[in-house]
């Protein structure tokens, strides 16, 4: 499947357009930082990972032919850099951190079963958040809780939630980047988002 779409932004980069470069590093800084934090724990180390990602992009830009989207390419490079960094760090990581529980393959319910009656209907339904001011839902504290929730996710779910909901990739891009099936992607997204929702619900109650 050789599809090469002309991407004006990629052309601008290759032509040495500084404005285009600045726009790209500004746009992707947040998502790249979040993804880097999925692999390394320290904020400063994550910043180094992001920086190294951009330098690697520049070193290899001439060879990039645009077979994947520019975005997928950049995020793929970040994942390689971050994983290499983690391998270096894993010598000093506590043993338990390497064996975080992963329920991605489980069919356990994502909502506490006690919230439903034996007939399968809600007995403790969720509250509507539409009455809450948007400023509460989007508060600094809510965002911090969500960060904590993401960091607590099993890695396979964390990657997907970050790529889909923070980096704004679509499911095809994520499947390509991680070389996983659409079903697999969806199951991990489902479990990951549900876990983040639980944390927000706890906070907003």
């Amino acid at each position, binding site marked *: 499947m050789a599809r090469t779409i002309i991407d004006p932004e990629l052309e601008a980069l290759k032509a040495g357009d500084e404005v285009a470069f600045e726009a790209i590093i500004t746009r992707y800084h947040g998502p790249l930082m979040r993804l880097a934090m999925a692999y390394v724990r320290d904020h400063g180390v994550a910043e180094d990972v992001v920086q190294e990602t951009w330098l690697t992009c520049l070193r290899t830009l001439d060879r990039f032919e645009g077979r994947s989207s520019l975005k997928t390419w950049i995020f793929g490079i970040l994942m390689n850099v971050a994983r290499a960094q983690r391998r270096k760090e894993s010598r000093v990581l506590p043993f338990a951190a390497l064996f975080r529980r992963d329920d991605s393959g489980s069919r356990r319910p994502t909502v506490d079963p006690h919230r439903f009656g034996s007939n399968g209907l809600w007995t403790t339904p969720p509250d509507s958040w539409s009455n809450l001011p948007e400023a509460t839902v989007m508060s600094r504290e809510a965002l911090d809780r969500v960060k904590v929730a993401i960091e607590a996710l099993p890695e396979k779910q964390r990657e997907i*939630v970050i790529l889909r909901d923070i980096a704004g990739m679509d499911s095809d891009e994520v499947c390509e980047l991680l070389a996983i099936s659409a079903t697999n992607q969806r199951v991990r997204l489902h479990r990951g988002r549900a876990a983040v929702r639980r944390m927000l619900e706890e906070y907003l109650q």
Partner: protein
Amino acid sequence: MKCRDVVELMTEYLEGTLSSTDRARFEEHIAGCDGCTAYLEQLRATRRVLGKLADEPIPEPVKSELLKAFKNWKSR
């Protein structure tokens, strides 16, 4: 469809991967169920909050260093 099952189909619904039959049953359930409507709305809000995490601004020193690297790359 029971609420217990509906909540596990929410992502498939949002992804648009439910069969048309399941989608119709799902929507029929949601239309008559405040709890599931609230749950779906919470998932959408969760996505919005997650999206907000993308907003971390790039620190000035990082930006200027990268712009310098880009200039070097350009004049290689």
